[in-house]
């Protein structure tokens, strides 16, 4: 069994309301830091999984992303920097 590490980025799907982003926009506007920032807020995870090979690790990560780290109805995810450690 090998161990793999990856980053996962979870973001809201298009058209889904982003209350956090809206609140940050408001504050940036009020403080004069930026007029039009269109902030979108997502989640960022780093984690490791075990697997025989990269393909298996990837598959496992996909399952983890779909089942635990994101809600596929509202969010999409991307797996990045997958590598053996």
């Amino acid at each position, binding site marked *: 069994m090998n161990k793999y590490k990856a980053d996962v980025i979870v973001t809201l*799907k*298009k*058209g*889904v*309301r*982003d*209350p956090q982003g*809206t*609140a940050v926009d*408001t504050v940036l506007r009020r403080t004069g830091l930026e007029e039009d920032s269109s902030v979108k807020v997502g989640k960022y995870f780093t984690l490791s999984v075990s697997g025989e090979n990269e393909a298996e690790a990837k598959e496992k990560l996909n399952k983890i992303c779909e089942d635990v780290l994101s*809600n596929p*109805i*509202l969010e999409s995810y991307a797996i990045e920097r997958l590598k053996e450690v």
Partner: protein
Amino acid sequence: MQTEQKIELYKALGLTDYEYSEIKNRLGREPNTLETYLFSAMWSEHCGYMHSRKYLSRFPSGGAVSHGENAGGVQVGEHVIVFKAESHNHPSAVEPFQGAATGIGGIIRDILAIGARPIALLDSLKFGKITNNFSKHIFDGVVNGISHYGNCIGVPTVAGEVSFDESYTDSPLVNVMAVGIVKKDKIRSAKAEPNKTVIAVGSHTGRDGIHGASFASKELNENSKEDRPSVQVGDPFIKKVLIEATLEILELEEVQSCQDYGAAGLLSSSSEMVYKGECGLDLYLDRVHLREADMQPWEIMLSESQERMLFIVEPNGAEKVLNIAKKFDIPARVIGETTTSNKYRLFWHGVEVANLPPESLAEAPKYTLCEEEPEYISEYKKLNLNRTTSIEEAVKKIVSDPNFASKRWVYRQYDHTVGTRTSLKPGQAGAAGIWIHEEGGVAGLAIDSNGRQVFLNPYEGARNSVWECCRNLISSGFKPLGVTDCLNYGNPEKDEVAYQFVKSVDGIAQACREAEIPVVSGNVSFYNESPERRVFPTPTIGMVGYVDSPDKLLKTAFSTDETVILIGKQINDDSDIGGSLYQRVLYDFLGGEVDKTDVKLEKQLEEIIFELRDKKLIGGCIDVSEGGLFGAVFEGIKSGNTGFKGNLVYSNNAEKALFGEITGRYIISTANSDEVTKKLESQQIQYKTLGLCANKKIEFDGYSFNTTELYDLYDKSIELEMGR
């Protein structure tokens, strides 16, 4: 070609042939595409109550706010306590966190629309078995969603119930109830008057929750490439600001009425207002503030974006409303005006795109349901439970069953003290107490349901649910004043469900008449079933009561050296105990006949409990429900952190005696047992002295338990499953 497409459309949108021809009849023409969307939403079960409306009129009405408003209420001095329950079952099954959160958001808006400040929330939750991973996920998400939203808006969640049963595995039930307070003369109606300005206040309208419609459109509209989620996302922060802004706006004399955006958003809020006010409306959809610029009229009308309110204002007051919104940094736009025309008209960039009589939308067809008794009723009645378990094992299984065990894991996540009104907290009594400092007394709040009993006997089971809720209030010292309900069933087009629904409505109506309390508001949720499973018919009863002084509250806790007395019915070998929790927990058994409420006895018991209370003769008080006699004694001593020594088994079947559930029972603890029993005897009320509260042990009829062990099982059961 044209017509063919239209046929496709109405069918895809869920309208039946009959409904479509009814629409044509009422209009005297074919509806256009937009109008077809409008009808499909307003004539959906969710908005139109087509399968239930006919039956809901059987409930006794009354209370301080009339029917047809957003929520009902009962009067307490110069104030009205406004309350309503609502379900958010289907959204919670798909996205538990947002589903439950927006459920809270929705019910709060109803209270707000009356002009009342929301002061408390309750939740009734039903899931599949807690050991099932999917159910766990839903349970966790729902509690988290309620916690997130309710805590943020600063409304305490003070009471509720949680149960786990296989029947709810595919269709969890998430019912929430909100309570508000308003001065009687400040109540706002949802009826619009003509020649007023219509103002939309709150969040931008986006493509959230455009239900069946968006689904259907996917098949029809080739242009829609993006798969748009139909789940609504709540923003409790904006909601909290909207609450404050709305209450400030409603202080303005020029504001005539107010309506929240519920199911079918702008469409239902605006059309119902003019329908109730018997006037007309011109709405300019291009003026609505949008989150996505390319939204179409039907999307704007059907969007269920959260955190929006609609105000009807004297034209000269519009500016004031807009200014208040501005102060709170909330978008607001004038989007139309009411007219004398009795026409509901929509405009899009200067063009009239819909023109309908308001009543054609609002008065969806009413269906009559089949009331024939399904076979299962008599079959289940005949079933007999012939197995037994050792009492030691049974006791441990019951106290650690998540249906019975402590719900601290849940209510610890809810802010239940914000508002500084909470006189009785979760876990302290059968009902929550909310201090009405405006009047000096305390309002009692409870929510209850019993799907197992209603399944076995829809009429008596539902009737029992109402009385059970009454006992929750009475055992905490409150006089019941009014009811709200949330009726959860499977598909009403199936005869079995139709029967369950109609009979339980009758049962609730009968109980409310017997108890002399009105049903002031409510909600219906059908189609809670999957191909594999259907939920138990689950009418959830929410109730509000009142007591004029905080000194008259009763808590559950029994104290050491007090005598424990059962007041009311006693179980004997012939008692009907169908639907008892222990049968389901120990044997997965459901069957037999349910007990019937004895109205005369219930009223006697209420009187005697209050009399004993006023004479300061009650230490702790609890009504006997799930878990039976043993369960009630256990909760009393656990709450007071003491023990028990006495007798509980008064029939040949020890399990039945200990855990069997019948109506009409309270248990009290008292330091003056002589005086209490004298009183009970003089009024010829059935009672039984059960024993004494003593430290460290629970001993009855030869059985002995260590309290530390049992209390630990009770406290940690849900935590162990869910994590700290």
